[in-house]
């Protein structure tokens, strides 16, 4: 399995990750060797086998849709972590291009 530069660029775009040319080259090589290794999973017979996505067997854990245990202090602290803000609003670059 050999990943091409183009594939690496495509995946980086999907992942919203700005990579340098050097990183792209390195990852193409490293990801290929990792994928080669894990491709051994193809050797295991899994016909008719159900996938396991969780191990506790819990199903549909629900609760009432109401705010609980959220302190106003935590709210204030959350706002203090905003990279850029205006009043109580998160400031971002324009979503629509002009």
């Amino acid at each position, binding site marked *: 399995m050999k*990943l091409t530069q183009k*594939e*690496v660029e495509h*995946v*980086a775009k*999907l*992942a*919203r*990750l*700005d*990579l340098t040319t050097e*990183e792209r080259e390195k*990852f193409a090589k*490293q*990801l290929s*060797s*990792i*994928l080669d*290794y*894990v491709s*051994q*999973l*193809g050797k*295991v017979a*899994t016909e008719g*086998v*159900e*996938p*396991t*996505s*969780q*191990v*506790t067997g*819990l199903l549909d*854990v629900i*609760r009432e849709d109401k705010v*609980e*245990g959220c*302190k106003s202090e*935590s*709210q204030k*602290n*959350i706002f*203090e*972590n*905003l*990279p*850029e803000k205006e009043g109580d609003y*998160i400031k*971002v*670059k*324009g*979503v629509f*291009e002009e």
Partner: protein
Amino acid sequence: MELNQLTIKEAHQGLVKKEFSATELFKACLERIMAVDDTKVHAFLTVTEGLAARQAKVIDERIKQGEEIGLLTGIPLAIKDIIAVGGERTTAASKILEDYIAPYDATVISRLKEAGAVIIGKANLDEFAQGASNENSAFTVTHNPWDLERVPGGSSGGPAAAVIADECIAALGSDTGGSIRYPAGFCGVCGLKPTYGRVSRYGLLAMTSSTDVIGPLTKNVEDLAIILKEIAGLDKQDSTTVDQPIEDYLREIEKGDLTDLTIGIPQEFFGPGLTTEIKELVQRAIGALEGAGAKIKEVSLPHSQYAISVYYIITPSEISANLARYDGIRFGHRSKKANNLFEVYTKSRGEGFGPEVKRRIMLGTYALSAGYYDAYYLQAQKVRTVISEEVKKVFKEVDILVTPTSPHPAFKIGEQVDDPLKMYLEDIYMSLASILGLPALSIPCGFVNNLPVGLQLIGQQFAERDILKLAHHYQQLTDWHKQRPAIM
């Protein structure tokens, strides 16, 4: 003996008898940190001196008033810096969260605070708990106190090193694919990964939500039992926690002998790749357990060899989804070079994440992308089922699996940073318990060239009691866990 060298139980007895105060206990740890951390061990990213001093003062007042105190009251703990401690810097050892102040306490932290534990600092890790050596931390590399040229293991390398260097009484880490057990092995401390769902993940910065578990790193098995009891249990804030009875583990592990336990030795964990010296030490430990009355049975888990590949598909996949939240919008680093919204995402993440995190995000995004999902992610989840069936069958015959923690002792810093696949394979004995959500622990079982060697015990789901009991009995027969490095 210095106060910082005590175990939880010993320190508790001293506090009860008023031999020393909680403030003196925390100051002894602080002095030790000042003496060895910045210059040699580098286990801490933040020392929460103010918080610890305030907590200790309140506790001393309570003791003075004659209040009865619990086992964890006044005990200084180091917390892996991926667990939120409200009001304190919580970085996950990543530049993307360099200035992030946790807005609230993780459930485990509020429970420990309620039990009176003193938070002494935030300990180093591989960035977002991704790594086996601590070399992936964006801020510093923790050095193994047994040999400062070597890694402490990862990703909870900071907590493990802080415990063995006596910079705290005990610590809290997280284990996704070995991150508590592996560094516990390299540093010669005890580390427990509880059953998945046993301990709330609320306030643990998510890496792989389906295998992340918080657990203790301590100086002996009794202390593992003490902390587990306090942090375990159902939590409304984490819908994956399970309502299972929590036992008084400290009392349970003392009970009876080992004659009712059957230990399985999976031959696949003793094959090529395992250092001869470690194999001998582990076999000697098994011999000691047999001598103490446990029944020993050879078992076979032919598909366990695939556990690590399953792990390295599932983990990056979940990472690629979980780490999407670091987008430069609501918290964390925001790039100053972005010209538009798309670049805010790409550049903030490009600048903020280190190489291993980027590598895993790329791997996971690829494995989940159109056309590859069936071949990688779905196939991995199916093989997980195959392995699970095999292990369930073996657990009908045995109670506990015993294996080595790692194939070799701690390696040198820088030795294998350029080979990510080799680094992934460090987890070779770790992945099985992780992908199946089983409880597992590592305790020291000897030394090779003055480097500690770990013994891994894997139990059945929610049977922490059994592995703690077996490990505790082993520690009654041996004193490997009492050895301390001369930090030079």
